[in-house]
């Protein structure tokens, strides 16, 4: 009885406090004058800043204090915005104002959902397998592949064979969708499919793994996995994208969860990428920044785990077969089959868990095109889930799971908000539409503290995983391309089809992606708006307050758009295998000199490593060396290599070496390069935190300037090319003549 009352009290008490706080907030919005509003707003903000600086407030219960204070500022803003700043001044004004308000409400909803989701992230959840190996469940490893190169598949399959798990309980399957019967029967592309089919079959035989293919490519990846499900019988399924190379300890660190919780259907692990996305490459220049998906895997997924809402991300996850079979396998209604499957299983009361240790190493898309393709798929898939399954109303989920799924889906509408923010000040400055009714004191006392608080909140939640302003840049880059894709889902939820993200692509030169053109438009719009602002400054002195606000807004938009342009600059990628920066000991033997010295590995890849050593004599180019390296498990690896590059720094030599590998050594190299999850973890955690907001700000300004310069050069060259091609054109001549006269 007491427990029941306590349970009620657990819900009732926070609700009462929330209600009273809301009442007090409403009172302040309704009755407080500017000076008091200023006091409330800025004292709240500085209090938040103070809490942010203390480690104590990173963990509950004090963490909740920080979150509630941030919520206080946000609700205060919503109340003011909704009750005081929506004023009808005409149909066009109203339309523009309503769109901006909707965009803001969207952003605030995401802000609140983010605060809710991140209330109490799960951390450090160790799990170890029992000593009795008979208790181990059988595991099937599925490596779905479609058009990736054999090299990529080989590494992943090879690394799978090296998993620390009883071999009699482990079965590995290459699930090939590039060599299906349908593909092989294609009159034009059939030969290529046949070749691939044979290559992968040979590869499977060579590595001692299984090869599976099917009749058709129906339901894309989901169909491929379901086909494999039907032809296998392992109790647990490890799904690995073909470019996701597992570490040896993947299963020993995850299987235990399934033994502990019979209702567990999923253990998801982070996707760890060794190459940057094109956007990350564009943003490079400040230390060793976090990867774009680090925010999701380092922070958000931990928080989702707390709410039992960690979902399947398509790869690097262990699933329970019986659960999958209960829902008919991997779901294929949406093009994010992974999240949809997890959603269905959560709806049936099954649990999920997240292991926050990177245990696979993968590849990000190399080009903007591939990057956008991947993000578009995610956006469309999650929007499909929102439209077709509506997490808020779907049966079976708990309230917090609903909110978590809704957040994950709803997030992908950010394109609307971002675009609206880009053009809203111009609506006023150029078209004269009154989209935001606020005076300067209101902006200063309510809006600015709130906006600044959102930056602090972002840093509080995600600071370990994302540098300041990176989110804005990422969102800006993606917004313009995702918006039409998301709209198309709303218009026809069943239309999107699964498109495989190409991996391991190479690019021979730097160039500006043509997708950047949209940002030229945004830059021009905001520049014109600022020009109009200057004109209005002198023509309408009464609008000075408004012009200060909109001018600042335009400047921020301009800054963001310029920085985004910088990010659109595609860097060349000529390496086949990506190098990773490490700092590990190495023993280097140079047989010719009879020397054996200790050095430091500075970077490594599957094909070689770079090291730094102190030598009495300079090594020769193409020198053969013997390298002895180790991993965190205590294993030692010996590789023969030849020096390809030597850079002298006094008596220190930075040498780049290439392994000389036969098949056996290749497997060793894979084990060395990809087998050690501690290395990935160290790299993951070593990703730098912020270098200071101002430094980041400066970096992005420089980046924007560079982007603008490069883009202008590119357009100039395009214009020259056009001129050379059309200089005889009559219209061009007329334009030139007119210009001369002018």
């Amino acid at each position, binding site marked *: 009885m007491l427990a029941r009352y306590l349970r009620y009290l657990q819900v009732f008490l926070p609700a009462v406090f929330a209600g*009273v706080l809301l009442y007090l907030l409403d009172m302040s919005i309704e009755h407080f004058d500017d000076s008091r509003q200023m006091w409330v707003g800025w004292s709240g903000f500085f209090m938040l800043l103070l809490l942010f600086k203390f480690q104590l407030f990173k963990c509950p219960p004090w963490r909740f204090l920080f979150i509630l204070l941030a919520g206080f500022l946000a609700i205060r803003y919503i109340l003011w915005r909704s009750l005081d*700043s929506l004023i009808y001044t005409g149909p066009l004004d109203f339309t523009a104002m309503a769109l901006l308000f909707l965009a803001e409400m969207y952003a605030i909803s995401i802000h609140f959902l983010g605060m809710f989701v991140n209330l109490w992230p799960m951390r450090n959840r160790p799990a170890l397998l029992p000593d009795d190996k008979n208790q181990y469940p059988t595991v099937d490893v599925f490596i779905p592949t479609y058009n990736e190169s054999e090299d990529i598949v080989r590494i992943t399959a090879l690394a799978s064979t090296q998993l620390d798990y009883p071999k009699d309980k482990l079965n590995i399957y290459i699930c090939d969708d590039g060599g299906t019967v349908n593909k092989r029967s294609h009159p034009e592309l059939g030969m290529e499919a046949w070749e691939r089919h044979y290559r992968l079959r040979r590869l499977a035989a060579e590595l001692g793994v299984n090869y599976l293919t099917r009749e058709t490519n129906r339901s894309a990846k989901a169909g491929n996995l379901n086909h494999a499900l039907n032809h296998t019988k392992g109790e647990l399924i490890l799904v690995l994208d073909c470019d996701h190379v597992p570490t040896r300890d993947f299963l020993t660190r995850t299987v235990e969860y399934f033994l502990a919780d019979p209702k567990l259907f999923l253990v998801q692990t982070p996707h760890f990428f060794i190459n940057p996305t094109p956007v990350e490459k564009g943003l490079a220049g400040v230390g060793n920044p976090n990867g774009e998906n680090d925010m999701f895997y380092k922070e958000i997924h931990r928080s989702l785990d707390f709410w039992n809402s960690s979902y399947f991300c398509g790869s690097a996850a262990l699933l329970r077969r019986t659960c999958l079979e209960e829902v008919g396998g991997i779901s294929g209604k949406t093009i994010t089959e992974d999240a949809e499957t997890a959603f269905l299983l959560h709806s049936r009361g099954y649990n999920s868990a997240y292991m926050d240790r990177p245990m696979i190493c993968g590849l990000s898309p190399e080009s903007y095109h591939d990057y956008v393709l991947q993000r578009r798929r995610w956006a469309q898939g999650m929007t499909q889930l929102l439209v077709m399954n509506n997490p808020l109303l779907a049966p079976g989920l708990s309230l917090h799971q609903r909110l978590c799924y809704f957040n994950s889906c709803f997030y992908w509408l950010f394109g609307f908000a971002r675009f609206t923010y880009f053009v809203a000040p111009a609506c006023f400055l150029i078209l004269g539409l009154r989209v935001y009714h606020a005076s300067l004191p209101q902006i200063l006392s309510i809006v600015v503290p709130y906006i600044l608080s959102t930056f602090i909140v972002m840093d509080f939640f995600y600071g370990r995983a994302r540098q300041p302003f990176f989110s804005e840049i990422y969102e800006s880059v993606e917004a313009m391309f995702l918006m039409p894709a998301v709209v198309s889902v709303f218009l026809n939820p069943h239309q999107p089809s699964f498109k495989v993200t190409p991996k391991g692509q190479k690019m021979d030169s730097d160039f500006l992606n043509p997708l950047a053109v949209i940002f030229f438009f945004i830059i021009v719009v905001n520049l014109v708006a600022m020009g109009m602002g200057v004109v209005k400054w002198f023509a309408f002195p009464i609008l000075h307050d408004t012009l200060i606000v909109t001018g600042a807004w335009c400047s921020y938009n301009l800054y963001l758009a310029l920085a985004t342009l910088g990010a659109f600059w595609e860097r060349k990628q000529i390496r086949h295998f990506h190098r990773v920066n490490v700092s590990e000991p190495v023993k280097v033997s140079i047989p010719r000199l009879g020397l054996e010295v200790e050095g430091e590995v500075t970077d490594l890849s599957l094909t070689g490593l770079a090291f730094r050593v102190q030598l009495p004599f300079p090594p020769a180019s193409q020198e053969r060396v013997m390298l002895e390296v180790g991993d965190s498990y205590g294993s030692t690896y010996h590789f023969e290599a030849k020096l390809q590059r030597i850079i002298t720094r006094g008596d220190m030599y930075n040498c780049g070496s290439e392994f000389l590998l036969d098949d056996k050594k290749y497997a060793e190299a894979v084990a060395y390069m990809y087998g050690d999850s501690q290395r990935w973890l160290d790299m993951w955690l070593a990703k730098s935190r912020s270098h200071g907001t101002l430094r980041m700000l400066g970096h992005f300004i420089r980046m924007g300037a560079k982007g603008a310069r490069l883009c202008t050069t590119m357009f100039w060259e395009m214009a020259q090319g056009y001129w050379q091609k059309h200089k005889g054109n009559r219209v061009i001549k007329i334009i030139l003549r007119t210009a001369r006269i002018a």
Partner: protein
Amino acid sequence: MRRHIAWFLVALSLPLPAFALTQQIALEKFSSHPVMTLTCIGDEQSLDIPIPDRWTIKKINLTLHYTSSNNLIADLAQLGVKLNTIPVAQFKLNPASPDMTVELALPVQYLEPGYNRLAFRVAQHFMTRECERPCSPDLWTAVNLKDSVLSIEYEEKPVPLSLASVSDFMFDPKVFPEGHVNLITEDRSSDALTVLGMTASGIARRFDYRNVTFSVSRDLQPGADNVLVGRRAFVSSFLAGHGLSLGNTEGGYLKILPMPGAKATAMPTTTGAQEPGAEAPTDPNHALLVVTGEQYDHVKLAAATLANLSYGFPGAPELTAHKLRMPDVPEYAGREVVRANKTYDFKTLNFSTTSFKGINPSGKVINFRLPVDFLIKQNLTAKLNLHFSYGAGMRETSALNVVVNDKVVRAIHLGDKDGGYFENYVIDIPTYLFRPGSNTIAFGVELQPSLKECDLALMGNMFLTIFENSSLTFPDMPHFVELPKLELFMLNGFPFTRWPDGFESKIYMAGDDDASVTAMLNLIGLITQKNGFPLLGLQVDREPPTAKWKGDLIVIGPPASVPQEFRARSPLSVGNKTEIPYPVVRDWEGEYTIAYSTQSNHLGGDRGYLMEFESPFEPGRTVVVMAAENSSSLLKLSMALMEPEVQAQAQGGIMLVETGAQHTKPKVTSFQIGTRYTTGKAGKSSQVESFLYDHPYLYYVLIVLLTLSFALALYWALQRYRASRKLGRSAGK
């Protein structure tokens, strides 16, 4: 012998319809500025001189004091005086004697009852052979309105014995310097005082903005208009004593009667003996107005009817009022009050179609009021929708300036040389430029000819016309104000005029002597004139108010008569061992640091105070105490409150007015004191909100405590849940 001659002369004068009276009044009284400055090469400005209907002007002289620039050229500079557009005098502006006082007799035949325009026009130059800038700073003439005096000799006309004369003859706003009316009442009961207050309010309303003082007596006051208020029995008997009678009637009853002269007891006979009971001749220049009815409800009906006699009907000397249906009075309505979300055309705002002509036309102002408890929102805009046209051939630098409360909000460029006509030229004016209470929107026009210097300037095309169908719309705002603020009380009687008829307001009269009652009537008259609506819903009570009273309250009387509950709340209490506040240091926000002295004291004579504080009976409701040591001081206080200088100094929660002879003008000390409280639209406010508003630091502490509690409650609620999420061996262990 001399005494006989004197009595003879008095007796001779009585039957005469009128005798000459004289009024001297500075022109400053007809303007809002003490100096009228005429600039540029040509300028004209005017004053409106009111001439009451009941005056027959015999002679009117103007003593004009002006100062002109000593850079002017005497042959080319002159000041003209026009009366109702007719030139009546002109003076050379001589730089050798720039400071001049001249006397001139204004032709009486050009004067008419009503408002007469007295205009001053200059033509002035400071160059002869070279081109001059038309608005050079050298070109100015200033008429000193303070020292310029109008001396009027007039006779009073007989009062027409028709109720039509109530509307504009007896109670005429054009009378100056002020109106005066004597009231006679049946007794000093609550009902009698309530109808007396209604009657006084109605009369004050008829006087419009002109100050009116009341007196209360047991008998008729000679030489003044008298109003007899009471039930029929009392009125009949009173009139019978003066040889007058009432007609037979039901309901409310109004009648205008000739003003009886003094009783024969006061009149000497030619033989020197007195003839008892004989009636003296009536005073035709004044009238006796009777406001009566069978019962008090009828008398109230009659008083309310009197308050509404706004034009010349009925022409008969009496009327019986059966019923009065007042319009639905919206909250916050009142004189010149612009209500939210309502569009007012300029004509309604007393701005008829106006053309600004010539090189230096005078500006024009729209005066209006906003409800004094408006919480002005920062991000709203009022909409000014202008229709205007302007002439062709003007220089591009010509502009129409729109000025709100002395802040320029828009200069409209008159850039089309072919002239222009604009409809729906909308200007959005941020509401933060407005303030609760009085506001102005001024239109200033700069018209310049499109000519080079020395070209022949034709001014006929230089005009700008603003049409009266232009409009102003003010957005809705919340009603929320922090009190005490006596300045709002002085502005329009707030909060007693929240409902303009004084609904939910009451006066508690502690004293019943003539002076105290007169002070009450003066206060009622003041509030009525400020708000422009008769206080027909205001109650007067002789019993101390009880906790049942949930409205606003005015307490009038000596300090000792203020009920104990109110004294406990009031910022100043007079008597034994009371705490008296003394302001010590004034900070930048105009707030005083207050020292409190506990003392036994008396207020003393020739001074009184006004205090405002929250009612102990209802949060958000107000009590205003008007108190003085004795009734004569109270009366003086009420008279002093009518002075604009006194009103302008009112602020905060207390206002002490010293009216002793040592002060040429009443001396006012006022400052913010007392517990602050808030009031909303309905007058009531949430006790919690009001308390937290008044104690902001408590508000902040409460927020912090609640957030902390919320955080802990959340932690408690989530801890158990989190334990269930621990999987794997480590959880078991």
